[in-house]
């Protein structure tokens, strides 16, 4: 009986889906693809010796851009989408930034991004906890990064966020080099 009902229902759903509007909102990557290189310029680099684990807040685990509209209210954009889960994207970005500021240094980093607030005022705020292991156990510290007037269009956010994580990597390396935890 159920089998007989399922088939028409599915056909109806497909029909209705075809009637639905097709949103063509662009999606954004945090880690931009590099430009193609000539074969003679290809260089093999060693695998990173940095381990990065990233977790993000639940509201950030969906593709829509979460826009903070004030009073703790978040509006998920119907027009701007992340191309990939933010935890993966931030992991790639942060590891790449760490490679640039602390090449060759053996690090194990855990980042918990609790807020990625994108305000309509043009401000981007990232806060959370970062824990670093240099061989003798993890040591954690809270962080809060803020950049005002960072964008004039939401599409600019895809470029701002990586820069801010680059700033986080630079600060982290400076702390490690100075011996501060």
């Amino acid at each position, binding site marked *: 009986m159920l089998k007989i009902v399922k088939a028409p229902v599915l056909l109806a*759903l497909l029909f*209705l*889906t075809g*009637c*639905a*509007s097709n*949103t063509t*909102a662009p999606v954004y990557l945090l880690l931009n693809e590099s430009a193609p290189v000539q074969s003679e310029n290809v260089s093999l680099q060693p695998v990173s010796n940095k381990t990065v684990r990233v977790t993000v807040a639940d509201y950030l*685990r*969906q*593709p*829509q851009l979460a*826009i903070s*509209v004030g009073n703790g209210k978040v*509006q*998920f*954009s*119907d*027009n*701007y989408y992340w191309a*990939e*889960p933010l935890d993966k994207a931030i992991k790639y970005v942060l590891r790449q930034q760490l490679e640039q500021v602390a090449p060759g240094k053996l690090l194990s980093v855990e980042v918990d991004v609790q807020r990625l607030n994108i305000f*309509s*005022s*043009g401000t981007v705020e990232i806060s959370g906890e970062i824990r670093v292991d240099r061989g003798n156990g993890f040591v954690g510290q809270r962080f809060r990064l803020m950049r005002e*007037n960072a*964008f*004039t*269009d*939401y599409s600019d956010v895809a470029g701002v966020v990586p820069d801010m994580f680059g700033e986080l990597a630079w600060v982290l390396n400076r702390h490690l080099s100075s011996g501060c935890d």
Partner: protein
Amino acid sequence: MMKTESTSMPEARVVRGRKLSILWLLPLLALMIGGWMLWYHYSHMGPRITISFHTADGIESGKTQVKFRNVVVGEVVGVQLDNDLSGINATVQMTAESTKLIHDDTRFWIVRPRVSAGGISGLSTLLSGTYIELSPGTSDVSAERFVGDENPPVSQPDAAGLRVSLYSHKRGSLSIGDPVLYSGFQVGKVEEVSFDLKNRQVRYQLFINEPYNQLVSDETRFWNASGIDLKADAAGVVLRMEGLETVLSGGVAFATPEGATASVPVSDNHIFKLYPDFNSTTEQEYSVGYDFVLLFDETVRGLEPGAEVSFRGIKIGYVKRIALDIFTKKVGSQKNAIPVVISVQPERIGKPGASKKEVVQMLNDAIHEGMRASLKSGNLLTGGKFVDVDFYEHEATKKVKLTMFHNYPVLPTKPGEFSGIGEQVSTLLTKLNDLPLEKTVADLNRTLSAAEKSMASLHSLLDDKNTKQLPDSAAQTLKTARKLLGDYSAQGAAYKDLQGTLNSLQTLVWQLKPIVRELSQQPNSLIFNREPEKDPQPAQGQ
């Protein structure tokens, strides 16, 4: 008109010419010069001598020279066969300066390339040709005929040193030119080897160079150092060689025994005995030995003449003869014993100069105190035996008289270690015989029977089809489990596939979240088109 006028004619003065022309001076002068040259030639010409050789090999008239210390002092001017055709005569014109070299005892020999065990000589003649070398004599008598040597002298006749003679009853491997060694260092050579018919001895003449002649005294012992002296006896295997050269070509070595302080230097032609080997030179220090007989009731295989007779490790004599009379008469309690003659050297037991009677008395006293002789193995490798003399307390109680056998005093013996081993083996066999072997074997048989049954059961169990398949099944299971674990390990292919599927599911859930939220906010949005909500405009973008 004619006018005759008588005038006298002037008388011609006759002048007689010179009878001898001045030209005759020329032949006269030539004659004088010729005569001077002849005088000069003959006055600078040395004596003309004749040297006889066995053969003219290498000698050529007008080419072969005579040299002394590599200076030409003459030349062969003619080579003729002698009258009886047994050799050749070489006529040699010597130089005037060589006159003082030619004496009655001057020696000549032909120098040609020679290769022998002692070395290579005369190599230079390969290019320059054969020549005749001379060694000047010291005699005051001059001579014109000489007999040349076929071989060069081993040492120069005028060389400083010492010539001594050795005699031996047997010709060894020594030959002319062989080295004479002192502590392995060559100090001379063998000059002559001859046989003394009168004494029936081989004679060797040695020349020892100065200053090594000081090493020779009347106590010096010479021995044949040829080859390798390998001695295997009860003392073991002893290898002795003076040097590689003597191994190849032979030689004579000499030394002065230790303690020979009152030795006197010897003069030329002193005669020494040539010992066959080094050991013989030391043996002869103990010249006095008194013979005794030992009667052994056991085998004497391995006992050789010359074997040691020792007392607690100290040599006191040697075995002189074995099996004097095999089937001996009964001597005391012994019958058909093997008699062995030993020589006891009183100098070795601290009794130099002791008479045989004194030695016999001393040994008789020792026998009463328990002294006995026995055979012992000196070397397990060679099987050599020696005679051991020692005191045994339990033998002291027995009254043993010193008997005589073939006019030799008989020293009592006791069974050697090999006979003792035989007794021990016999005792062991007796004990083995007393063991309850039959009962033990019966018990063992019963045990083996039970074990055989157990083994049969075990065999049947193992032969069972299911039992045989059990290991294969277990192995297959383990293999499958190992493969399964390998696939699902971090490096396994299944793990990666599973991980990829999970990632895809996560991505799918992630992508479905907006739809789920929209459906939860507006369930009919799937059917009715929904206008996308406008985002708040960025402040600076306004």
